[in-house]
């Protein structure tokens, strides 16, 4: 989808991402890809993969350790699932509402972005975000060896600086849905690289799109729908789980 075209054309897509947790095996490839394409500093993870139980109503015993990959339950009746979490790109985004300088804004396609030139580092948005996906640049960043990687360039939407390879000290950063990629018709990098095909990106307005099918017929749900944030990231819940006879 080319936003330039979209602007000339009255049609505006509704970008959503659907994550099929039946497929997710917690490999963190999406998170590392995010780190690569966005040149995220050491210690920064715009996208993280949480270890979880397959469903929220589980009665299984909590994990014996708080580390990743440790299952719920008691051997051999065990449950293990994963929940990759980045910015949920909410249609009714608390971060947009609280930003005193309109640095965080929502595009008409549903993408929530930070204008790094406007951000004053007040971190209201971090307090407001119920998903804990925003990160503040407290100091000078350190990076993995190899220099600036990934997209490597500035990208502006409507003149606003929304992609910057090295974010300055004092701004808040987060997932951009890879706006510089989706605006030229590519998928977000995490969706392109997911080795299991668990991450699907597309236009919810398009009735033939895979995301439309998954949201309307595949049972995909939003994270914490009770908060009324109306995210544009959806999760297909785990349908199957190991049932151990003993």
């Amino acid at each position, binding site marked *: 989808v080319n*936003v*330039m075209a979209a*602007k000339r054309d009255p049609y505006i897509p509704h970008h959503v991402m659907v994550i099929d947790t*039946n*497929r997710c*095996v*917690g*490999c*963190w*490839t999406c998170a*590392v*890809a995010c780190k*690569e394409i966005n040149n995220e500093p*050491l210690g920064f993870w715009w996208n993280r993969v949480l270890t979880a139980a397959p469903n929220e109503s589980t009665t299984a*015993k909590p*994990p*014996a*350790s708080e*580390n990743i*990959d*440790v*299952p719920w339950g008691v*051997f*051999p009746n*065990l449950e*293990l*699932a994963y929940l990759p979490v980045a910015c949920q790109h909410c249609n009714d985004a608390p971060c947009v509402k609280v930003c005193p300088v309109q640095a965080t804004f929502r595009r008409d396609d549903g993408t929530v972005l930070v*204008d*790094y*030139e406007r951000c004053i580092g007040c971190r209201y948005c971090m307090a407001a975000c119920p998903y804990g996906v925003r990160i503040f640049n407290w100091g000078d960043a350190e990076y*993995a*060896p*190899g*220099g*600036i*990687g*990934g*997209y*490597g*360039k*500035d990208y*502006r939407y*409507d*003149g*606003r*600086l929304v992609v*910057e390879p*090295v974010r*300055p000290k*004092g701004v808040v950063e987060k997932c951009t849905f890879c706006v*510089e990629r989706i*605006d030229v018709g590519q998928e977000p990098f995490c969706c*392109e*690289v997911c*080795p*299991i*095909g668990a991450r699907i990106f597309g236009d919810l307005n398009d009735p033939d799109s895979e995301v439309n099918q998954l949201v309307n017929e595949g049972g995909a749900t939003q994270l914490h729908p009770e908060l009324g944030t109306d995210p544009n990231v959806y999760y297909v819940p785990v349908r199957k789980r*190991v049932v*151990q*006879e003993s």
Partner: protein
Amino acid sequence: MIVADHLRFFQPLLSQGPMDGGPVITGNATVYRTGHSNNCDGACGHLIHVVDGRVTEIGPAPWGTKTVSGAPAPTFHPRICLRGLSQISNTYNPDRIKYPYKRVGPRGSGKWQRISWDEATSLIAENFAAAQQKYGKKSVWIAPYTGSLALIEGVVGAGFRFASVIGASAGDSEGDNEGDSSTPAGWNYVLVDPTNPANGGGFFTGHESVDFLSAKAIVFWANNVAETSIPDWRIMCDARDASGTQLISVDPRFTVTCAASDEWLPIRPGADTALIDGIINYVLSNGLYDADYIRSYTVGPYLVDPSTKKWLRAKDVIAGAKDDYVVFDSSDGTLKAAGDPSVRDAAIFGTHPAGTTQAPTALQLLADMASKYTPEYTSKLTDIPASQVVALARTWGTQKPLAVRVGFGLSHWYHGDLHMQALLTLQAITGNIGVHGGGVTTFAGGITTTAFDFLNFWAPKGTTIYPLLEPMNFCDAVLKDDPYPVRAAWFMIDNFAQQMSDRNQVVKAMMALDFCVVSDYMLSATCDIADVVLPACTYLEKTDLLSSNNFYLQYMPKIIDPLFESKSDLDAIAMVADKMGVGQYFDQSPDEYLRQIMHLGQADADPTVKGLTWEQLTSEAVHLNTDPMPYVPFFNKQFPTKSGKIEFYVEMLLPFGQELCEHQEPIEASPTNPLYKKYPLVFLSTHTKFRTHSQFVTLPWLNEINNGGQGFLEINPTDATPRGIGDGDVVRIFNDRGQLKVRARLTESMKPGVVNCYQGGWDTIRVKHYIEGHPNNLTHQIANPAQALIPNFPSNAAYYDCLVQVETVKG
């Protein structure tokens, strides 16, 4: 680039950049395609973005859509995982070995002096020549291993050519320090005649990964595919989503693969054959076998002489018959030679009169052997509920085709050969070998086919192929001159001092060498013991070709110039060879060697690569000409065994009492072992998604996720609590061979009585991922003599066949 500027907020909006909001295109990346040749079997294709000579982005690369001859190739998704994406910081790692070094302190002291390539290669040439003069040519041992699976600089690569041309011995080309040899040996028992020269001493292959899409059920046996070969898990999910394929895991650990499967059978480690015998018994006694398949393609109907247990021969029991196997024709009640065209109904079961004796069919012997493996008895041996044994047996007998994907974990056992023999037996009686969606697959791909002429690469005209000295024989060769003295060694793409089992013994042997060279790009535990260290290239800095674990040819161009003073192993070998007077064997470019290995453009090229052009090879990842497609071994049901059939009754194993796949207890990790009282825990050292064996261990992105890179012991609270071990406590894991100290991670994913510490973390002078030691300080090198029947897979490190005790460490 852009510096922090608190004043920027005050700049007017829309002051910079294009007003239309369109993309800002700056810079110009050149994008290359290559294959990631490290040893994880993923064999991913990478797209490498280079800006101003520096790699800036790595992403997944598309696959060619055609075969060499232009036929459509299967649909194969671009693939990559967290390790591949992290390769920029591997190549640009500040801890790379930048220059050649020689040791200046005592061996193992970590004191180095930078030297020139000229001095380094002179030292190697002189010391190799001195050792060869004093102790014989074979006393120099070349050990190129599986750190790379590329053709020129990998487990099948130029190191073997160098060994041949100087007359040195070399480690085997199967590799992986031998933990991966027992299941291939078992595969050859059943499917290959190792004594037939046409079989080259044995081989090992499997189904192309997309062939699993045809399976109705897939059993992951000791195979944590969703963690260790992550992109292959997509194919399994695609099969389940498209066709309802049932996914079943057999594993003592609740791995992510088990969690994502439909069924999990938490087996007692090493009891695998018992479970298979239980399924065989159920399948045979409930009519769930494939009688036609058994009759046509297996030795099932052939009669066995009850006194010798050897095959009954037609010439001995049928007047005038030629040398052949014997069957009992139920249609007329007579014995006939197996090849007799008048055979109408060869009996697969029963014991039939043969001369003065009663001769059973091979299938009858299998049924008799398996009969005691009732669901209840199987349950007792395997710790799997009898109902689950029956459920799996019913699946096996009713879901066809059924595919088995086996991890090399099943090979890390003294009886790994038997595990594979048993799986193939079960797949044979259910008609699942040589069919789409069936088989038993660990590894497949171009490297396992006849596409490449390795023999002429390893031993160019005028030279003799190197003598094989197995890694398992290294210690004895150095310390006891058995089978001959080894005094000098060159380790390439191999972290032998850490990854080989019984590490204390290995280090002792390495310290006893007169001279030791190591080529690597990082200062590994093996480098720590070297006299000369050479800086090697990563996959981005040299030319090669990858065709492992898929059937595509992935040309690997040199994408960036070698950093610092690193050189490819081929260039390093060429310098040494020149100084040893054999430079003429290494005077060509990698491209030229690739042309030779594939007989490119020649009439005698293998059918899989026939007609391949250089342009084709270097413009996309082209699929081999395979028959069928996706590739299935033995699709034509021509088995290269003595009988031409699947030999689940293995006559050559009679001396080992292993002619049939009857369960045997592990050599060490068994409750029947008296040692079990002292060391009651089975010690596994499995693979993690955060590294590939001992590579990529210091990459910060991966270590940020993976506990800072620090190793830990997975232990069930049931085992931890009585020992006073809490989550995060430091524990000592020990047995008579050595010890390891790490922190405990309590998890119900471990079967009680089994503990696990991921292998591959580093224990070097400078980098310690374990508080003390390494998992291989606990493992052993007890070899199974039966495997010696298969020349290419003669010995195996049984890493998991290992007992330990665990205790807390005070203070």
